[in-house]
């Protein structure tokens, strides 16, 4: 059995609800999705038991009613793409800096660009938008229109 299949099996054995929900892509990619209340137990298992010791990045997606986030966890050449979603403007994320201190910048990025709040994120300067960016404008949301920047008093 390949390394990838072994990892997949371990995940499925540990979490029943992941059964059938893990997709292999090529030789070194796993894709799966969990609801946010179960997210941290899967993340914890992947980091502590399966040895996914690096976070490539966090991708944020606007899916209409929801905001989806993919945590790309890597273990050498293998990447586990762990997707989860929260209700837009209602639910917050919790920080993963406890596992990956370097994740702070990625969390700031989704905060700025998609407008999700991240609980427990250490204070610091914003990234990547400028300090005078109008509040409430999140450029990576699908319904965002760059024309608002041209109007005066858009904040």
């Amino acid at each position, binding site marked *: 059995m390949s390394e990838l299949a072994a990892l997949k099996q371990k995940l499925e054995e540990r979490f029943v609800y992941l059964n059938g929900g893990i997709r292999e892509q090529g030789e070194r990619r796993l894709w799966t999705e969990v609801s946010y209340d179960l997210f941290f137990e899967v993340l914890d298992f992947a980091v502590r038991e399966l040895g996914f010791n690096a976070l490539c990045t966090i991708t944020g*997606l606007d899916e209409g009613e929801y905001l989806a986030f993919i945590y790309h966890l890597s273990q050498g050449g293998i990447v586990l793409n762990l997707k989860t979603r929260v209700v837009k403007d209602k639910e917050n994320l919790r920080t993963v800096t406890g596992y990956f201190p370097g994740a702070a910048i990625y969390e700031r990025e989704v905060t700025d660009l998609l407008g999700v709040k991240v609980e427990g994120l250490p204070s610091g300067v914003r990234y990547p938008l400028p300090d005078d960016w109008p509040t409430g404008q999140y450029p990576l949301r699908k319904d965002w229109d760059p024309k608002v920047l041209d109007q005066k008093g858009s904040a």
Partner: protein
Amino acid sequence: MDFDKTNDKDMQISIGPQHPALKEPTSFSLALRGEKIEAIQVKIGYNHRGIEKGCESRTYIQDMYLLERICGICSHAHSTAYVQAVETIAGLQVPRRALYLRVLIGELERIHSHLLWLGVAGHEIGFDTLLMYTWRDREAIMDLLAELTGNRVNYGINTIGGVRRDLTKEEGERIVKIIDHLAEQTKYYIQLAQEEVTLIQRLSGVGKLPREDALRLGAVGPTARASSITFDVRKDDPYAAYGELDFKAVSADQADVYGRTIVRLGELMEAYSLIKQVVKNLPDGPIAVRAPRKIPAGEALSRYEAPRGEDVHYVKSNGTENPERVKVRAPTLANTQAIAKMLEDRYLADLPIVVAAIDPCFSCTDRAIEVEGRGLMSWEKLRRYSIDWYRAQGVDFRNVKRVI
């Protein structure tokens, strides 16, 4: 120490957004006690151009050209990472010859990037001679890239499903000739790095990043490999033709700026060997397959070992001509996290070289071919014009020989 908690005794000084040490806007706010750095705050994002958003309203092929312009140095890295993701989604079988050519351009790019870095590092510690030497050698690679692809930067050689330009036998021979020359030069730089006292004094023990911290903070590329992390995407997650080629991931255990220098010099030597292998073993066949305009729905994550480290692209398609989402994580973003750690208890004088040692990516402009009021000029004519112009200023370039 937290930047906000510094007190009146400290001198607060900003390096950037505009500062001679930085080639790209970034801001470091420092609290200094004497020459010592007490706290540091890094602010980036001055170059945010909304490229990810821009990708969503362009077609896949337009996006490739847009993404290539993320960076003026590792442009091939971004375009390759992107087309790899799209090809995975579309299930395209890229011809082997195209994969080899991607490696060729990728390694040439690594050489010009590392030589550039070596020069910048020299300049940051006041060793301008090194800057002049390495940038002179780098010109040979830039000219070679222009001959092969038509451009010194932003080569535009990739396309979805392969590459756009083939390599002739004569070009292959010329590449080998230039690579041999550069290998000799690089051996000299390696000797220099081992022997020059002031250079070692300024690099050794500076910007310490122990292995655990490098892992914790997510450092990538030569920065991580200098802290004895052997991860190299080309080895661990092979793409293009790297799986078939013979090379080693260079690493060092000094965990400081000196180690990062050694790693980059070692990678230069590996790149020379890789290029020679590619030219020698280049398979026959087509250089591209036809790609559909509309990419079927799906998603893929592609990784690429850029000169500065792991470059990550995520592409999500929705079955139309435009992607649903493109996400880019450039290596510098991962490495910026480690800067504060590297500068703990160091001196102001170490800041430029420590920052330079992660090789922050900066934008370059391509050359222009129009001179005001004189219409379009050919390359030869432009060269002639510049020589005459400088002669009128009292500087004679006529006798300057090209190195190779």
